[in-house]
């Protein structure tokens, strides 16, 4: 990138990139469009402030940022609403478990719900790009884990998993509660 970019130019570059992307953009990717050593965080903050009162707002979603229309303007778009297929209860609950307990294994999901995860459930959530594979768990068998994505956060208007209410409460209830039949 040219080194001649001043603060305002850099803001404009980020702005233009955000305005022309329907998906959230990784901050690390955005940084590639700026000179090295630039404090992108301060640019994001400035832009966030600027758009706070406007018709589109700048949102943080995990490690990404995105421009989205202000929520209070949803009435303007009523006509645009597309009837979305609703997810099964199993898929909704599985999603909630991943969000609250990530990284979480399939077995853990099954333990919480008390039923096996039907085939297709994980597939659907993967296709939506709301969950992805995480690191393998350091437990016997080293099972794969699932975690939520920036896209999930974006979709549900969350800026980080910490925005979920009652995470601590749920963690206190424990994840690895032993199975009853071990007694």
């Amino acid at each position: 990138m040219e080194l001649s970019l001043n603060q305002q130019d850099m803001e404009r570059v980020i702005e233009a990139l955000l305005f022309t992307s329907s998906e959230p953009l990784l901050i690390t990717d955005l940084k590639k469009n700026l000179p090295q050593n630039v404090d992108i965080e301060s640019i994001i903050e400035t832009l966030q402030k600027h758009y706070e009162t406007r018709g589109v707002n700048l949102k943080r979603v995990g490690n990404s940022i995105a421009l989205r229309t202000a929520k209070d303007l949803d009435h303007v778009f009523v006509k645009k609403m597309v009837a979305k297929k609703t997810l099964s209860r199993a898929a909704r609950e599985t999603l909630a478990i991943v969000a609250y307990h990530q990284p979480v294994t399939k077995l853990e999901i099954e333990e919480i719900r008390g039923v096996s995860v039907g085939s297709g459930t994980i597939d659907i959530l993967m296709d939506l790009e709301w969950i992805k594979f995480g690191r393998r768990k350091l437990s016997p068998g080293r099972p794969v884990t699932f975690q939520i994505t920036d896209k999930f956060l974006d979709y549900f208007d969350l800026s980080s998993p910490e925005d979920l209410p009652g995470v601590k409460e749920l963690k206190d209830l424990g994840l690895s509660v032993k199975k009853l039949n071990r007694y």
Partner: protein
Amino acid sequence: MDQSTEYHKDIKPALYVSLDGFEGPLDLLLTLAKNQKVDLKKLQLGILADQFLDYLRDQRYKFKLEFAGDYLVMASWLTLLKSQLIIPDDELKKEDADKINELLALRLQRLAKIRENAIWLFDRPQLFRNFFPSSLNRDERVIKEDFLKVQLADILKAYVGIVDKKNYEVPMGTKEEYLFLDKAISFIEQKVKGSEALISFPSLVKEIHALSGIEAKRCAASIFCGLLEYTKLGKIQMKQGSAFSILELAKVRNGNTV
């Protein structure tokens, strides 16, 4: 079974029993517990156990019991639990019963909580419903380039496809992880044959590691074992100047060290 289960029949469908709309025994128990209208921590397990068993009895003809193992396991636990609650003659057993009671209550609380959270999540403002993304990405001045869109799932599915097609498990990790002893010995043999000078142990390890890509310490272990074998055969002799110094090997010819 729902359609998606049917769809994947050939891939060993996960056991999925829907009992009159209930998704598993925990789901049924939770519903029954909620009817008690008490704090889940203060469950009336006796009553709950009766309700659960009654329910199963009612449903007896509506589903095949042999498919409902989970429900039966739960039923037997509840029965045991209840019997121990009624006749707590043995202190130890009473403790067990309390523990099971507590665990069950905990699991129900957790499921109840996750359910609340799932509802909370889907009640939130949602993209394409309450707020919208940009559609401005069709600017004509933008220089167009091909953009590759591949998801990890595509790659994984491709792999499952190959394995399915061949109808056998492709052995994982064809990459050699271990230096087998016979290979180690033949390597040593080859090195000794081509060299009249002393050969150092580390150099052998280094070379086979570089050649095979097998972890260095595994190479060291195999080469060491190979050297012991080879020495036993009387083909070489091993020398070490002092403790912890470098191990060297020499060819033995006509009973004499070269």
